[in-house]
């Protein structure tokens, strides 16, 4: 399986909410961006069936700050083709504890998916595509920070990464959501997360699957 070089992307914005699954109805964010949120940012810029992103590191560049607000939302999910929906009759007032003024440096690479990548696909081609798109600020859909409404500013990140909390050697974050494992039944995967001098090191799929009790 061919793997690309490592890219470094800077993503930040005024608001972010990487919702903890256990506090999802009344949303509360994790302290740092989750690997799946980072994957989402990258996929917003470039995704093809032939490639799969793997996030390696998330460096926290701005101190963790919180904010909290209440919004009127609804209880149902959108259904395609349903036209007679009245939001006022389906209200859910929900609280959100979100992060403010976040800034991250995401280090990630992608690999070609066997079976999906055709003979005309190669790593170099997608690498160049990604670089070009990132440089120009192009995207498939607006990149966001955890929730669609919290748009992200995304740009290439230079060498000069300066995480906050450099002096804290190892700060435990507890079990953090890793990603969904899609299959016959979808299940959430978790991993033991630490901030090492301001950097979250993200383990690979196999390691996480082992921690989650293997494949069901």
């Amino acid at each position, binding site marked *: 399986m061919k793997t690309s070089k490592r890219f470094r992307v800077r993503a930040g914005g005024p608001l972010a909410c990487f919702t903890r699954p256990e506090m999802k109805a009344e949303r509360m964010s994790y302290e740092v961006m989750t690997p799946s949120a980072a994957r989402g940012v990258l996929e917003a810029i470039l995704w093809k069936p032939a490639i799969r992103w793997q996030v390696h590191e998330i460096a926290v560049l701005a101190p963790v700050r919180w904010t909290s607000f209440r919004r009127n939302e609804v209880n149902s999910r959108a259904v395609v083709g349903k036209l007679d929906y009245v939001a006022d009759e389906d209200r859910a007032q929900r609280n959100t504890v979100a992060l403010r003024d976040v800034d991250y440096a995401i280090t990630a690479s992608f690999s070609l998916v066997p079976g999906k990548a055709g003979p005309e696909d190669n790593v170099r081609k997608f690498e160049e595509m990604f670089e070009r798109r990132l440089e120009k600020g192009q995207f498939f859909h607006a990149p966001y920070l955890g929730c669609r409404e919290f748009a992200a500013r995304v740009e290439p990140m230079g060498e000069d990464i300066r995480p906050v909390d450099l002096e804290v050697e190892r700060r435990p974050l507890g079990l953090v959501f890793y990603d969904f494992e899609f299959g016959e039944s979808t*299940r959430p995967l978790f991993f033991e997360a630490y901030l090492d001098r301001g950097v979250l090191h993200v383990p690979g799929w196999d390691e996480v699957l082992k921690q989650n009790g293997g494949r069901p």
Partner: protein
Amino acid sequence: MMLTALNDFARARGLIDDPLYESKPVDFLIRLDVKGKFKGLEYTQDENGRGISRRIPRLPARSVNVSAGFLADNTKYVLGHDPEAREGKANKGVARLAAFVKLVKEAVAETEVPELRAVAKFLDSEAARAEALADRNPGEDWTGSEMLAFVVGDSTRPVHELPGVEAWWAQRNAQAVAIGRRGLCLVTGKIGVLAETHPKLKNVPAAQSSGAALVSFNAKAFESHGLVQGDNAPVSQHAALGYVLALNDLLRRSDERRFRQGVELGEDSVMLFWSNSTAAQERELQDVVDPTEERLRKLVESPLKGLERGEFDTKRFYAVTLAGNAGRVAVRDWFQASIGDVKQNLRRYFADLSLGEDTGLKPTPIWRLLKSVETPSGRGLPSNVAARMMSAAIRGHAFPRLLLSAALDRLRLPPADDKFEREQLRLRVALIKATLIRHSRSGPAPLEVSVSLEPTNRAVPYVLGRLFAVLERMQSVALKDLNATIRDRYFGAASRNPATVFPRLMQLSMNHLHKAERDRRGSANWLEKTKTEVMGLLDGKHYPRLLSLEDQGLFAVGYYHQREALFAKRKGDGGGTPDAGSDESDD
């Protein structure tokens, strides 16, 4: 992390030593003979009419559903007796009783305990149940929430505590666990049986009184990828019980407090805190943050002793702010640090608030501080101000700026109640002072605000505040017993637009001076001297046209400092001002 910390707390304090049982007050024991014949009700209440706590099989989570306890439950389940049942409303009595009986019969079928058979027989007979109801003391009403349990024969041990029965209960629960889905628990990080729904929290403000869930997925919009209920956030049953028991323990009402270990923040939220230190440490911190009236009296003797460095300073401190939202509980804020850091932040909080010579570092409950800046109409501050203020106190952050404008607005209004006016004024200005200090710590230009009068401070708003206090004093020396003083009339305008008000005030003061010189020459001369001193600190002759919110705050602090200084002077050197004794009352 939060749930993990709570679960650890529950384990450390032994709250889940006994997951199948809980401690609940039982009001009555139903005594049966070995054949199941009713013999009598036994009252187990103490002298206050409250049931004595007993270990009973843990009751299931209930909201509107019918779900029975095992061998011990309330009268609605045990006897099918619900005094609140009204016509037109679905009567659940039959279903409840059936659920209770079903569990007992299950046990009878699988064990050889004769006492169980007696209970089953009693429950089967409607006449016997009616007999039990009729055995109440005459005139005694049951609300339906009285707890009942059974004893058989001459035993003193309730049926649910018999060894055979306990063994069956344990086995039955083990079976229920065995059929549950297993997976990685995101609280403990271990593989365990996952909870489908979580137990409920009781006593959260603004939540349903029957209980509300912290972790819940009760609408489609809260679920992801077709996962239902607990699968959205896999938590083991054990951990779910653990964190809920921990929170319920902290939320419990105690004799002195609405929340055993929590600070009430406005109408709709509560900050709970705990640590991995000792319960005594937690109590001490709570007494400082949110002292009860009784504790306040004791604290005056040795204020803030609880904040001195101690052996537990490296232990962890956790705080969570919860707010109810009907059937759900929302987390508003979450904080963790070492106990030492929290103590240091709290010390600074009290230092920032301290004002005047004789007050020292005296803790004031946060609600009282905020009450002092509310408008007299009773319309309170926005509900989250208390939460933000508390969060700023334990984190050492700036106070909400809103407090500054609220306090200034309150100062502009005439005093509501003369009796508490002096104390209220102190609290208001203390809040202004602390807000200014904290604001400037994070801002560019440091604003120095001291605890008591600074005779050399040349900041214009501060000096103007002092001048205003002197002018007010002159007026009160000249004209006693006024309906409206210059403070009532001009404080707001003077602090906002000095240029438009001060010239007029100076004019007035000349009149006051003349009048005072006639009656009380000593006081008048001395005040005139002070006035000249203060005026000397203003370099130019021009008063500023407009003061910013922060400057208005500084004005208020200057006013307060000078006012206290005048007051102290008069009290202190009675000989200096000839008629000091005569005007003691007009403050």
